[in-house]
Every structure is written in C-alpha cells, then in structure tokens.
C-alpha cells in the first residue's frame, strides 16, 4: 500500500494527555493565561480568573503529570499580589517572574513562591511600561518584555534596568498592534505574537526583524488573534491561534506543518471531580454521546510551552486545563 506524506516525513505528533479542570483554587485552573516549566518539571501557571472571583487570581504550581504542588500570590495591589497577571518566566535559578498588565510591574518570587521584589514604572517613556503582556529571559539573563500598549518590545536587566527597545505602532515589518506573547529560541531570537496584526514576527537578539509568519483568516497559516508562541529545540514554531481555537505548527522557515484542535480525554483531576458528582457524570455521558468534540477541543488556547522532554503543553484557557502533545521522529501508535 502506498503511503503519502506530502513532504512531512521526519516529524510526527500525538496527543498525550490533559492536566487540570476548572477550579478557583487547589487542583485546577481558572482562566489560565500563561505558564512556565522549570528544570525540575514544576509548572507555574498564571490564573487570571475574573473580577467577582478574586480568589481565583493566583499562581498554581503543579507538574505535567498532574501532581499538585502549591499555590501562591493573590488578588490585590500589595507586594506579591496581582490584578491582571498575564505572563510568567523563570530565570536560570528557577526564580519566578510574573508580569501584571494592569499594575505595569514585574514581580519576582522564589521558586517556592516567596515574594522577593518588584519593578516597573507606568508610562510610555524609555523603560516605562504600559501593559506588559509577555516576558522571557534570554541566555544573558536579561528580561525581554512585550510592552503591549506601547507597541514595542523592551529589554531590561533582570532587576529592571532599561537596556534597549524596538518596535512601534503599525502593521509594517517590525511594527506592532497590541502584541501579546513572546518566546526565545536557543539563539535568543525573539518571537512575538503580534496579536492584532494576526501574525508572528521574528527578530534577532538585537531586535532586527527577520521574518513574519501569517496573515488574517482561518485558513492554513492564517491567524485570528494569535496570542502565544513557542519554539522547540528543532526550531519548530507553535502558535496558539486564540480565536481560531487551534494551535498551528510551523517549520523554522515559516512553512506550515500541521495543526492541533485539541484532543483531550478526562484528566485525573477532572475524574476526581466527576466521581464525587454522579449527577454530572449522568449528564455528561448523554452530552458526550451527542457531541464528544465539545470537551476534546481547545477553547481559546492561550499559550504554548515546551518542557525539558520536548513535550508541547498548550493552555486550554476556557476549559481550565493544559493539553499535552508529544513530537516524535518515529511514528507511535496510540
């Protein structure tokens, strides 16, 4: 029998499992918007929640194997608190940095969630912030910040001393319209989800424009408000295509490879929840037989990260979970 790969011979992907459930505290997430994965496998998840449930605003620490570790941070304006937390990054010692796009500040915690320090000044001048929406730490230990409402990217030392910036408002190369997420590859190239321009822009570590990927739409290689981006060790690029409810995968040169729409089965925490709610099991089972896709698919995927094992973790925002995919060179039958 003939097999047709149409040029995609060297990679294969499969869905591994899902982590989490919707919950305002403990073993679940509430409107998660970003995560960072530490070298020991700890996953730091930013829970945005919503205004009338400030108890849902915090960081959850768990693993991709669905082990709950702890939570830290709370709603508020005090030290170690958040109003609109939006992004997280880890330094080489696994200290945790969280960006708050309302308070215009970056807060540093230890890996155990103890508050250390904060920085950030509101404004549009050099080194000032208006809506920091994505953060990443480069190989020099400097922090690259997506300064969203100022339509630029700024580089700071890890304690907030301004170094440089690039970008301006617009839709040309190197210009932005409310950019959101960020990722760096192994060479400190900078990938920005240029949210309202429906594209990913790639810059070198000096901020020089390299390429743009994508246009507006819902076709292949098109985006509807992409908000998160990640790059794996091979240079493959994963984009959370927010309003298209999918994740698209591109080769390093920007060529489309495949896309994920979400394939989740029930997570362990999800099963715990259902086991104590037999009436929900009853209702779910009838609904599932009507439309299994509803529960499997992404609903506003909001960020992608790659762990040490190369697993691709996608924040499935509205469903309050993380869907994990695996890339293999050789095919795997699941």
């Amino acid at each position, binding site marked *: 029998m003939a097999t047709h790969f149409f040029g995609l011979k060297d990679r294969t992907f499969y869905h591994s499992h899902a982590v989490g459930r919707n919950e305002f505290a403990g073993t679940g997430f509430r*409107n998660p918007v970003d995560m960072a994965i530490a070298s020991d496998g700890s996953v730091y998840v930013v829970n945005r929640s*919503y205004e009338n449930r400030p108890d849902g605003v915090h960081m959850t620490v768990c693993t991709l194997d669905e082990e709950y570790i702890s939570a830290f941070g709370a709603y508020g304006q005090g030290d170690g608190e958040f109003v609109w937390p939006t992004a997280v990054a880890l330094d080489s010692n696994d200290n945790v940095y969280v960006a708050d*796009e309302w308070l215009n500040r970056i807060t540093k915690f230890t890996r155990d969630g103890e508050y250390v320090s904060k920085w950030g000044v509101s404004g549009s001048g050099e080194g000032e912030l208006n809506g920091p929406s994505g953060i990443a730490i480069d190989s020099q230990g400097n922090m690259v910040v997506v300064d969203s409402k100022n339509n630029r990217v700024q580089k700071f030392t890890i304690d907030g001393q301004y170094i440089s910036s690039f970008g301006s408002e617009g839709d040309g190369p190197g210009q932005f319209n409310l950019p959101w997420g960020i990722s760096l590859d192994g060479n400190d190239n900078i990938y920005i989800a240029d949210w309202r321009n429906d594209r990913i822009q790639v810059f070198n570590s000096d901020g020089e424009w390299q390429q743009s990927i994508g246009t507006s739409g819902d076709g292949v290689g098109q985006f509807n408000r992409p908000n998160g981006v990640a790059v794996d060790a091979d240079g493959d690029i994963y984009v959370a295509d927010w309003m298209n409810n999918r994740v698209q995968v591109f080769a390093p040169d920007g060529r489309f490879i495949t896309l994920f729409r979400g394939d989740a089965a029930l997570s362990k*925490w999800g099963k715990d929840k*259902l086991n104590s709610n037999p009436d929900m099991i009853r*209702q779910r089972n009838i609904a599932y037989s009507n439309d299994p896709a509803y529960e499997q698919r992404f609903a*506003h995927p909001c960020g992608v990260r790659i762990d040490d094992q190369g697993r691709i973790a996608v924040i499935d925002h509205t469903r309050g*979970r993380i869907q994990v995919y695996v890339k293999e060179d050789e095919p795997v039958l699941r």
Partner: protein
Amino acid sequence: MADQDIALVAHLMRRAGFGASRDEIEAKAAQGYDSVVQDLLNPAGGLDDDILMRYNPSYYEPGAIEVNTQLWVYRMINSPNQLQEKVALFWHMIFCAGHSKIDSGQEMGIMVNMFREHGMGRFDDLLLRLSQNPGMMYYLDNTESHKANLNENYGRELLELFSLGVGKDGSFNYSEDDVKVCARAFTGWNVAPAYPPFPHGRSPWVFRFDPADHDETEKTFLGETGPWNGDDIIRIICEQPGTARFLARHLYNFFVADEPQVPAWRLTPPRDVEAIQILEQAYFDSNYSIKAMLEALFTSEFFKDEAVRYQKVKNPAEMVISLLRMVGEHQEIKPGLFEISQEPKYMGMDLMNPPTVEGWHTGREWIDSGTLVERINFAAEMLGNTELDGVRGLVSRLMDRGDTLSPEQFVDGCLDMTGPVQVTADTHAQLVAHAAREGDLSHGSDDERVTFTRRTGEMFQMIAATAEFQFE
C-alpha cells in the same frame, strides 16, 4: 445652538439610549434630530469583541452570571448602538426569564444576545427565536411539556405576558382553551442534553425538535383550525389586533411615559389613545416590524412633546448607566466594572434575574426607602466626584458661562449640565436658597476655582438627591 434642540436630543438619548455626555448631546443636536434617530434605528459597527476578551478573557463563552451581567453593563455604557442595547433591556423586562431558576449565566447571556441582535426585527421572528431559546424553554417548563403529559406554562405565558395580553378595551383576547391548544402546539420543542458545569464548563444548550413528542392533531386556536405547530401559533398570534395593542402599550410604557402595571391593561385605557393607534398602525403597515414601530414612535409629536419629559421613573439600569455615561466612567476596560455592574441590583433590579416571569414592577415601584438611598447616594457619588473627567468638563463649561455667576445662574447652569433636568418651582427655590448662602461664584483666582469646583460638586449632589432626578 438652541437650548430646545439640546433638550430634545437629550430627551431622545435618555429614552432611546442610556443618556449621553454633554459633548455627545451637543454633537448630536448639531447633527439634527431626524438623522440621529436614523442612526439609532440602524446599528452599525459596534464594540471590538476581541479587545473586550483580550483584557477580560472570561468574556469568551462567559459562564458565570456575574461575568454575563458585567459584560452587558459594559455594552450598555459603551456601545455606539445605544438603541440596540436599550431594546435588549426592553425585551429582557418583558420576556422575563431569570438566572435563579435557569442556573446558567451562559444561557442568560445567550438570551440577551438574542434580544440585542433580533430585538428590532420582525415580531414573529422574535417570538419564534424566543420559543426556541433553550433558557426560556427551561424557565417556563416547555422542556417538561409532552404530547402525553402537557405542561401549560409556556403556552399560557406566551399569550398572557409575551404577545396578546389578557385583553383590551374590556374584553378578553383568548380563552383557557386557547392556552391549552397553544401549549399542545409547542410539545416536542425541547433542548438537547448539554455538558454539565464540571469539570470543564457547560456547553451551550441547543434547541431540538422531537417530532415523536409533538402533538400533531388538529387544533382550534383563536378560531382557526388546523394541525398547528408552534410556528403556526406564532403566525396567528401576530395577526391579532391584541398583539399590536400589547406591543404598542409596552413600547409607550418603556420609551414614552409610565403606564399602569400590565395586569391593569385589559380594563384601563391607554394614557394616550392616539399614540397607541399610531404604533398599532405601524405594526400592521410594516408586517410586524419593531423597528418600524420605533421609528414611528421617535419621530412622533407625542414623543417629542415636552409634557412627556421627566414623566418616567428611571429604572435602576437607566439610573446607573446614564450616570456613568454622563461622567465618563468605565469607558475604557479597567478593573472595577464588577462592582458597578452590581449597582442596579442594590437598587432593586438584579439584571438577568427578574423576580418572576411577570418581571419587575416599574414606575414608582422602583422606589422604596432602601432603594431610594442607594439611588441618591450612587448618583451623588458620581456627579459629586470632581476628579472625574466628565465632571471636570461640566465644571469648566459652567465657568464658561460668565466670570461671575449669581446663585440662580449657578443653579440653572448645574441643572442644565446634569440633564437638562426639569425641577418644580419649590425645588428650584430650595436649591437657589442653598446656593445663596455662599453667594456669587467666580473663578478668577486659583482659590476661587477650587471653591467653584467644590460648590459645583455639592450642587450636583443636591440635584442628584432631588425627587426630580429619579425621573427621566
């Protein structure tokens, strides 16, 4: 610009929308009344949903009731299509279904979205959508109504509260038999099973017709005999003069002046018989178009008449939203909207959760000693806050009226800025006497400007506290 043009456009914006800032009122007065009416009737553009969801990601598939009301309040404050939002509220106050029974904020949001999108279309289309709206079908037990085991609730309320009304001109519009037949025609109209809230959130409920559960036998409804299904019933309902009367009175009551409570309509004639006739005519001439009825209403003399201004007690949503629009608060996306979205509830109007299918009692019944305190204090808090951009703008407009203002000029200016509000001679005299204690106002020096600003804030609070300010 003539004061009467401003007063008329301000009246239009209070009724066809949730008021407006002084700048907006003046711009619209310059645009011309008829042109503004056309803009209101023909919504175009709107809010950027992507931006709304960007900063409030929970607005995507909003589940919690609080998130749904918050999103609606944001739209009421900021939508350029003010009449569309006002019409959504109008239907929500007639086609009442509430979260306390439905227990799904998502379904309440979906229902209100339907009112927003289709509320100015044809009434038969709207009734069909309503009868297929899963939240409403559950609220009024149509999901429990079966061929073999009839539940009359939806059949009854559709006739009594959603379309014909009990009667008009002293006689009845339908019989008890019509109620049963109506209910039988809607058997088989049901909702497909949906995902529960745990562990990943509900899936939206979906209408599903089950022919096996539908009573397809012959039925006689309002004198017409046939194997009627729900859509036939809606067709027959919409042909009735009672439906035209019912809609006309509701529109008059909501947009023009307070009528008696609905249960009294069979026996109590309309406040303005001629106005009702004009609206009924528009209904039939346009093939049941709500938009055509609204156009007839807003371009009519009875609407423009000064005698109907400040004749309606503001409902709590109108009170809260119009103040926010006047002072320019929450026009950008920022924290604090949840608290604001609860204010109507404190004043007795829990949005998306009316007390019963009969809805809120309106007019003077909005006011009791508890809700009056809430209304006055919220209004005073907003208008008295001279830090707010909108209020500062009003203060500087007042200063522009002259280097020195007498207490009377000052009071008249403040009343004009906050409405223009019409007050009784007694109230006017009290306000002037209050202003006179501190004498004339000037704003030449910094000190004088500080005093001028403080006194304006206080006078705005006094106006907010008047009985007249309870009306629109």
